[in-house]
């Protein structure tokens, strides 16, 4: 890190501190926490795009898989649902996986020709109906169990921190499956494939109620940090807060947010240390060689496809990890809140603005763009108020302009992305 980079980080820190002094410390800490998570997502995308030149626009799907991991790991199991259809559901899932594995084996074993294609189609159709035959009653039975409050299998009831690596693993598994099919095709095709898989992951989360309660949301995820209410009732904490001259209620929310920030910061620091080590190792040099000239790298004996798959899985796993962290912070999984503009394309803006190919750049972009994403709205509202101050109170245009402030952030992000791409295409902290 050079002096200039350090100054940029100081600048972003000052921005967040400014929010603390001018708006509220609660908002400032919220920005910091989501900024930390965004920085981790940006690190993941930077690995794929910055190191290897892979164009992944399915970040949202991997983030959502991480969120699912938080539910599966941390929520208490629903005994009645397991009794109603748990075993049959497991059987159905194993069966589904078996059908696909069988199809792949069939494809590889049989000789090329019409017989193979027909056998494959017949196998898949038969497998699909068999799967649905086992699956449908199980799903219905599970969803019928006290649908208003559970209606799903629940999780394993393990500590929520364990969900973070599990989220990474889930995302890595999905990335392996996508990478196996779509890598090696042209870059635009990978983009469309990842865009599609992200939509499918969200569709699964929204519709498979037995798994994630669908649009009924899973709320009340266990937390790795104490609850505010408990803190406010603990005499020691109240005493300390009053010693600092703080209201216990305010102090407890700030304390909880700070604990989260410490956890996230630890993860971010560990990841950036690993990422820097990897980037500056022979492996990192090989990756960049592959990115800059695939043909030359292949001629030097590098397995381009395998390397692409490897870095695609790594980057996606980091996005999954960040997704699990985010769901832990929110304390709930709301599948309908996953929007591609927010969870895929915004992360891309972070990477491009920060500096693709540079880990510190991605992290800086994560903080800066998240800060802007949050703060553009109040700032835009202020600007609109000033602009419309001269208009008549009952003017329809004035009301419309003030109402539309919420949509300013998309516009602003687009402008920022285009300006950076045009005038500083390598980002704020360029690759070295």
């Amino acid at each position, binding site marked *: 890190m050079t002096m200039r980079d350090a100054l940029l980080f100081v600048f972003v820190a000052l921005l967040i501190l400014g929010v603390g002094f001018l708006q509220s410390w609660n908002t400032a800490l919220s920005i910091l926490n989501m900024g930390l998570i965004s920085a981790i997502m940006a690190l993941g995308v930077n690995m794929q795009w910055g190191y290897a*030149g892979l*164009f992944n626009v399915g970040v949202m799907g991997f983030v959502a898989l991480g969120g699912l991991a938080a539910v599966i790991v941390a929520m208490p199991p629903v005994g009645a649902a397991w009794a109603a259809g748990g075993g049959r559901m497991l059987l159905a899932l194993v069966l589904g996986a078996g059908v696909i594995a069988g199809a792949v084996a069939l494809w590889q074993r049989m000789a090329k020709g019409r017989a193979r294609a027909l056998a494959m189609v017949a196998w898949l159709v038969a497998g*699909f109906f068999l799967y649905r035959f086992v699956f*449908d009653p199980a799903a219905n039975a599970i969803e019928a169990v006290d649908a208003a409050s559970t209606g799903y299998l629940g999780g394993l009831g393990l500590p929520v921190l364990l969900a973070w690596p599990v989220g990474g693993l889930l995302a890595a598994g999905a990335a392996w499956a996508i990478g196996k*099919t*779509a890598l090696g*095709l*042209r*870059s*635009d*095709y990978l*983009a*469309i*494939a990842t*865009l*599609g*898989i992200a*939509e*499918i992951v969200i*569709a699964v989360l*929204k*519709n498979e109620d037995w798994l994630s309660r669908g649009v009924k949301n899973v709320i009340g995820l266990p937390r790795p940090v104490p609850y505010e209410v408990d803190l406010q009732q603990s005499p020691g904490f109240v005493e300390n807060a009053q010693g600092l001259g703080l209201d216990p209620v305010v102090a407890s929310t700030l304390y909880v947010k700070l604990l989260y920030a410490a956890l996230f910061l630890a993860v971010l620091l560990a990841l950036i240390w690993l990422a820097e080590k990897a980037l500056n190792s022979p492996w990192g040099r090989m990756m960049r060689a592959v990115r800059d000239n695939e043909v030359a790298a292949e001629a030097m004996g590098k397995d381009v496809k395998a390397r692409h798959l490897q870095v695609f899985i790594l980057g996606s796993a980091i996005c999954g990890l960040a997704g699990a962290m985010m769901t832990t912070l929110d304390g709930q999984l709301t599948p309908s809140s996953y929007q*591609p*503009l927010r969870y895929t*394309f915004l992360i*891309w*803006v972070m990477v*491009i603005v920060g500096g693709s190919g540079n880990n510190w750049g991605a992290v800086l972009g994560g903080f800066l763009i998240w800060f802007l994403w949050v703060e553009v709205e109040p700032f835009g509202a202020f600007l609109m108020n000033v602009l419309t101050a001269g208009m008549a109170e009952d003017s329809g245009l004035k009301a419309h302009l003030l*109402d*539309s402030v919420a*949509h*300013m*952030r*998309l*516009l*602003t*992000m*687009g*402008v920022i*992305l*285009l300006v950076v*791409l*045009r005038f500083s*295409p390598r980002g704020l902290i360029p690759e070295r």
Partner: protein
Amino acid sequence: MTDLLNALVAFSNFVLIPATAYGAQLALGALGVTLIYGILRFSNFAHGDTMAFGTMLTVLFTWWLQSLGVGLGPLPTALLALPAGIAGTALLLLATDRVVYRFYRAQKAKPVILVIVSMGVMFILNGLVRFIIGPDDQRFADGERFIITARAFKEMTGLDEGLAIRTTQGITLVTAMIVVVLLFWFLNRTRTGKSMRAFSDNEDLALLSGINPERVVAITWIIVAALATIAGVLYGLDKSFKPFTYFQLLLPIFASAIVGGLGSPVGAIAGGFVIAYSEVTITYAFKKVLGYLLPERLEPDGLVQLLSTDYKFAVSFVILVIVLLFRPTGLFRGKAV
């Protein structure tokens, strides 16, 4: 026999006709994507939002015309507003090209950079549309709602099942047909169209033979504006106009273009219909149709729906993957940059 006819009518009413209209809308969208890919050589992620922008302009003009009391009688007023919408969108796209894309073209930037640039344009258009008309659902169809209503059809034929053809579905098909015929006539018969195809086939040779690249690019954008606006307005008339839905249309549209073969106009049309028919067929509950066809004993208990409607994106995606795995250049040999 009546059972068979009933089954056929039910199938047409719920699968064939809606899917044909949807396919025509997808085909028009995919034509735009494929033209940009052929001439400008990148996948335009802003296409869905271009459609939304064009539709928004048309909706605004429609409202204005309606407030003046101007209408087309049984046809929707939006058809009258369409040329204005196209003109506005063409101006917007030409301005975007001038301000944004031309710089990268002069630099000969890699296609993937242009894709990222189009992501920025997508953000701006998306924000602009939400800023002007808001993120909510807007209905702007007026005029006669049906060409044939289900009841009229039942009375006419004496069948149990009704066949309803909505005006918007009829308009979609007629308009799409006119647009496609015009486009192919333009591409194959006119000097400008030929220069566009030459440019798409081999840029260097086209430049050597004196074709003005900026002119080709400008005309491409104008045609794309027309295609995107028409596709968007037809989709909006048929269903409703909601900016986010248009953004989501990106996936089936790209799937259509790729399945057909990127850069190939015929492929885009074929791809649109392939995707639309599979999407609607696989997510339709066949209980009713099978009820007529099968003997009573075998009648299905469930809905006989292969996948729930919410998985329609999965269908376009799976078809896309299958085509990419077994025929990477698409059904009609597209080009690969």
